[in-house]
């Protein structure tokens, strides 16, 4: 299935759009989404270790706008948001 990942902060540089789409299996965990996204980044930007670091250190928010951890299993979500390391103020 296709999932839309909305991009924020430094992750906005991953695409000219404000999102990207990944093909993933159903019922996978956030940890597996992260691995899928890292593979996508490695294919698209093979020399960019910074982008991989961003994905490695990012959290994800589900479609209820709740930040979820690596063991969270996707059910009906069609959309996630990537939450890179934060630093407002």
């Amino acid at each position, binding site marked *: 299935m296709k999932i839309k990942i909305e991009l*924020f*902060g*430094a992750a*906005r*540089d991953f695409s000219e759009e404000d999102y990207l789409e990944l093909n993933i299996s159903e019922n996978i965990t956030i940890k597996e989404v992260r691995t899928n996204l890292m593979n996508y980044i490695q294919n698209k930007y093979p020399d960019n270790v910074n982008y991989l670091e961003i994905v490695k*250190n*990012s*959290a994800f*928010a589900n479609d209820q*706008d709740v*930040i979820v*951890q*690596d063991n969270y299993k996707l059910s009906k979500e069609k959309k996630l*948001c990537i*939450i*890179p*390391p*934060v*630093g*407002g*103020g």
Partner: protein
Amino acid sequence: MFHGKVIDTSKETISLDKAQKFIESQQCGASLFFIGTVRNHNNNKQVTGITYDTHDSIVEKSFKEISDEAISTITAEHPIIFIEHAKGYLPLGGISIVIAVAAKHRGQVYDLSRFIIEEIKKRTPIWKKEHYNNEETTWLEGTPVIDK
């Protein structure tokens, strides 16, 4: 009482008057404003402005959670909290955040204000992209919000 909002700088600006009016109360003997502004240097670079990116709904939810935690941790009496954070481009001197608090005593407002800004920096989904003289830009490194 609580107010927390993301302000889109292309449409409006953060208003200190609005904050002042919100926190006015005859029950409170102390009020305090924390104002964050864009400064002209960082990491030995000349900064010309900052673009703030935010996940608006999580930010506003986070402001409320942090405020509730601050009130219960500090046991502030008659607390009033007003938080606004900018989204979009701000030039040097632009106001990025206002945390205006009022409570019964001065110690409570100092503690509330400090608690709130430190927690926002640690866990609220806001990001900064600095702009420099040579038209380069950099997303600043931040604090991961994932469990490791």
